[in-house]
């Protein structure tokens, strides 16, 4: 009995120490941390889509979805007139640097300092008429979450947002041009 109580106390201590370490390490991070009170996934919708089908339905109900052919067409148009379309990469920095749509801007949904302090005002004032948001593949939820962020937190009209659901996987498969590094 006493041993069980000791074990339980040790577990509680370990849990408290882990939480303290996690919060401290998070506070010391300059980027890539988590905002503890931020509702990342929309509190009304518990659970994430486990497969492409679920995400397609949910995203399609809120935004215009485009395929790789439309994405390539939009990209060609943006090369001629940069104010027509801006590609937003919703993946993390490492994936962005590893290979992205040329001219795309890094907009990591999980990097709150960058996205909230630097990126949101820029996007609100952007002269571009349309945003094409993409992620890694049609199983990736981050593009959809970024679309919601643009609509709800930045105030972008949803009619200006296109979600390229196939993402980089479809882009690569279609032989789309690639750029590497952080600079456009």
């Amino acid at each position: 009995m006493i041993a069980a109580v000791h074990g339980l106390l040790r577990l509680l201590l370990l849990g408290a120490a882990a939480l303290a370490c996690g919060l401290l390490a998070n506070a010391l991070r300059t980027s890539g941390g988590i905002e503890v009170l931020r509702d990342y996934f929309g509190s009304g919708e518990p659970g994430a889509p486990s497969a492409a089908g679920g995400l397609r339905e949910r995203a399609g109900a809120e935004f215009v979805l485009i395929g790789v052919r439309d994405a390539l067409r939009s990209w060609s148009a943006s090369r001629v007139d940069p104010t027509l379309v801006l590609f937003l990469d919703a993946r993390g920095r490492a994936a962005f640097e590893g290979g992205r749509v040329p001219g795309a801007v890094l907009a990591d949904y999980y990097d709150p300092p960058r996205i909230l302090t630097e990126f949101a005002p820029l996007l609100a004032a952007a002269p571009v008429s349309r945003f094409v948001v993409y992620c890694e593949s049609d199983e990736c939820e981050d593009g959809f979450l970024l679309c919601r962020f643009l609509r709800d937190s930045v105030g972008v009209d949803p009619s200006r947002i296109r979600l390229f659901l196939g993402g980089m996987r479809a882009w690569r498969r279609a032989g789309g041009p690639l750029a590497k590094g952080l600079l456009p």
Partner: protein
Amino acid sequence: MKASRAGNSAAGSGTAGASAARGARLAALALGGVFCAFGFEKVRAPAEFLKALHGYAILPGGPPFLENASALALPWFELLCGALLIAGVWRRTAALALLGLLVAFTLAVLQRGLRIAGETGACICSVRFDCGCGSGPVPFCAKLIENSALMLLAVLAGLPSPTCARGRARRSARAR
């Protein structure tokens, strides 16, 4: 003759106890190493772990800070338990804590894998996803086997060491 037989049996149980203790120590070292590596990977990228954790829908409808705080605390919990196992301090507590985590997450992996297979119509063992375990996208069946092996290690590492058992018996005899 009797004394010599008793001596032999004591020596035999001593040898068995020593090898059991060695086995538990080795299991603790292996389990500790694995969880330190997994924990470190998650500590490096908390957002990735938050996404994976959300995918399991373990805390549906709960306040967002609960999920966010869990994504921050769990990797450190694994790291701390792993370090304790390697150091040989609070070995049983750390092993049982990791066993609890393994059981909970194996059930969650099982549920998620079956759901994906059901939705996509794919063969169960061809399902691959990032389980958030710190090892990237993995085949579903391989993950289940890996977790079963880790659970076995946790059980071995959590076995009471013979010296502890002897000490406890001595203490209770003295109390009597």
